[in-house]
C-alpha cells in the first residue's frame, strides 16, 4: 500500500469534520426536533423567524428540523441528539427528557398556555357525503362501521384518539368509568387495523380506501380535505379532547451551544400574531383568540376537555396505555 494513503484518508476525515465543528460553535444555528405532522408548519415558521431575527439582531440564523414519531424523537434527544428546542406531540415525551436532566422539571410553566402555542383536537374524517351518517361518537359503535385509528401503544396521536373516545364515554354516562370502558371496547371492536403511526392510518384511509371513518388530528384532517378536494369531509363531534402539543428549550444543549437567547426567542415567537396565523393556515388552532376568530369557518368549536381531565399525561399514560392498562384490558376481554 502506498504509505501516503493513510494520511490522505485522515486528512480527508479531518477536513470533513471541520465544518461540523465550526457549525457547532456558531450560535446562529438552531436544531428543532419535532414530530411528524408539523413538518410543513415549521418550515414556514422557520423562514418567518429567520427574517425577524435578522431584522432584530442582524444575525443570520439557520434552523434545522428533524421529524419523526414523537416518542422516538424524545428518545433520540435523551440519547444525545443535540436539539436546542423540542416541539413534540405530548407533554409526556418532554417529561421524559426532563427526567434525563436535559431541561428543568417545571418546563411547562416557562411559556404561556402550558407551553403549547397552538392546539388541535380529534375529529372524524369521513368519505364525501358521509354515507354512513356518522355525526357523533355514538354512531361509531354501530355494527358494520369500520373505524381507522392507529395503535395507542406506538402512536402519540392514537392516545389522543383513545382519550377523546373515553371522554365521550364518560360524558354520555354521567362519569361512569365502567360504561366509558364499555364504550371504548365497543369502539375498538369496530377497528380492523391499528397502524403503528398516525400518518400510516391516514394512508390506510385515504390511499387504500379502507374504513368508513378516520379518527384524526384536526390539522391532518384539514390537510387531507385540502389535498383531495371533494373526496372527504370533516365531522366535528359534540365533544372531544383539546390536544396541546408542547414546546420547550432543551436547556442543557442550548447552554452548551450558547443558543439560550435564540432558542427562547424562537419559541416565544410562536405566540406572535403572524406565527399564529401560520399555525391557523396549517390547520392548528391558534391560541390568540383574535387570530382564531379570523381563521375561517373550519374550526367548529366542540366541547373540549384537556388532558387534566385524566390527571395529566403521567397518570393517563400509566392508567390507559401502560402494560396491563385499560387499552390492554379491552383487548384481553375480547
Amino acid at each position: 500500500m502506498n504509505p501516503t494513503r493513510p494520511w490522505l484518508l485522515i486528512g480527508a476525515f479531518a477536513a470533513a469534520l471541520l465544518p461540523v465543528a465550526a457549525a457547532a460553535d456558531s450560535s446562529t444555528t438552531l436544531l428543532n426536533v419535532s414530530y411528524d405532522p408539523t413538518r410543513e408548519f415549521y418550515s414556514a415558521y422557520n423562514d418567518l423567524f429567520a427574517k425577524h431575527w435578522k431584522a432584530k439582531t442582524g444575525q443570520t440564523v439557520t434552523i434545522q428540523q428533524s421529524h419523526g414519531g414523537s416518542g422516538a424523537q424524545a428518545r433520540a434527544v435523551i440519547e444525545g441528539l443535540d436539539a436546542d428546542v423540542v416541539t413534540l406531540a405530548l407533554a409526556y415525551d418532554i417529561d421524559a427528557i426532563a427526567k434525563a436532566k436535559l431541561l428543568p422539571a417545571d418546563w411547562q410553566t416557562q411559556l404561556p398556555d402550558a407551553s403549547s402555542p397552538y392546539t388541535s383536537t380529534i375529529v372524524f374524517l369521513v368519505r364525501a357525503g358521509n354515507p354512513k351518517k356518522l355525526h357523533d361518537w355514538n354512531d361509531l359503535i354501530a355494527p358494520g362501521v369500520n373505524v381507522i385509528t392507529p395503535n395507542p401503544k406506538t402512536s402519540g396521536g392514537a392516545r389522543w384518539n383513545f382519550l377523546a373516545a373515553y371522554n365521550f364515554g364518560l360524558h354520555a354516562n354521567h362519569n361512569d368509568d365502567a360504561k366509558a370502558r364499555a364504550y371504548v371496547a365497543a369502539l375498538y371492536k369496530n377497528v380492523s387495523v391499528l397502524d403503528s403511526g398516525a400518518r400510516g392510518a391516514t394512508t390506510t384511509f385515504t390511499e387504500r380506501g379502507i374504513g368508513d371513518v378516520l379518527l384524526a388530528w384536526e390539522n391532518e384532517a384539514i390537510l387531507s380535505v385540502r389535498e383531495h378536494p371533494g373526496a372527504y369531509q370533516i365531522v366535528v363531534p359534540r365533544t372531544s379532547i383539546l390536544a396541546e402539543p408542547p414546546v420547550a428549550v432543551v436547556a442543557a444543549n442550548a447552554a452548551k451551544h450558547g443558543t439560550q437567547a435564540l432558542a427562547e426567542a424562537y419559541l416565544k415567537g410562536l405566540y406572535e400574531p403572524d406565527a399564529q396565523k401560520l399555525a391557523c393556515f396549517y390547520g392548528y388552532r391558534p391560541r390568540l383568540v383574535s387570530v382564531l376568530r379570523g381563521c375561517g369557518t373550519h374550526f367548529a368549536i366542540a366541547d373540549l376537555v384537556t388532558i387534566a381531565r385524566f390527571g395529566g399525561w403521567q397518570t393517563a399514560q400509566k392508567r390507559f396505555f401502560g402494560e396491563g392498562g385499560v387499552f390492554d384490558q379491552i383487548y384481553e376481554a375480547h
Partner: protein
Amino acid sequence: MFRSRDAIPGRGIALGSTIAIVTLVVFIPLAAVVLAMQGISAETLARALFTQRALAAFRLTLLASLAAATIDLALGSYLAWVLVRYRFAGRRVLDALIDVPLAIPTAVTGISLATLYGANGWIGGFLEAHGVHVAYTPLGIGLALTFVGLPFVVRSVEPVLAELPRELDEAAATLGADRATILRRITLPLILPAMLTGFALSLGRALGEYGSVVFISGNMPGRTEIAPLAIVTHLEEYDYQGAAAIATALLVISFVLLAAINGLQRRLSVAKAAV
C-alpha cells in the same frame, strides 16, 4: 522480517483485526442490548415476556418466520436452479431483480404489499372476492417475510449449483438414472448445505423484521402483533428494560435456531465426506 513460521504470512494481524472487527461491529452492540436489561425486576421481566399477549407475539413471530423461511427455501432453490441451468433472454434482469428486496426500504415493501393485497388492491380485491384475506392477517405477515427473505436462499444456492460438475449428472445418466433420481440422489444432497444456509439467513432476517410487517399486519393485540412491535411498544413507554428483555429473548431464539441449523449442516457435510 517474517517472524511467523506459518505458510501464509500475516496470521497474527489477520486474527487480531478479525477479532477487533467482530467485537466492534457485532459483539459490542449485541452485548449492549443484553446489558440494557441490567437491574430488571422479576415483575418487569414477567410482564415483558410472559403475559398472554407477549407469548402470542413470540408465537406469531416464530411461526410466521419458520413458514416464510420454508417457502423461501422451496421457491428460492427452484429459482436458483432455473437461473443456473437455463439460458434465456432476460435472465440477467431476472437475476438482478431477486436482490431488490434487500435494497429497498422495508417500509416501502410493507406499504406496497398492503396496497396490493388490501381489500381494494389489485390482488387483494380478487382474493377477498374468494374469501381469502391477506392484508391485516397472519397470512399478510408471512407474505412480507417471504418477500424479504427470498434473496438469501437464491444467493446461497445459486453459486453452489453453478459449480456442480455436469459430469456427475452425465455419469449418473449413463448408469441408467432418470432425471428425478439424479435430482434426488446427486444434486439435492450436494446443495443441501447451501440450502440450509439460505434457510437460516432468511429465518434470521424474518425473526427481526419490523419495517415491512407493521404496515401489512394491522397490529391487532394478541392476533397480528409481532415481537419486534412489542419492542417498539415498550420503548414508547420509555421502558428500556422491558424492550431489552424482548430483544434478548429474540436474540436467544435466533441463536439457538441458527446453532441448530449449523449443527445439522456439519453433520451433513461429515456424512458427505464419508461417502
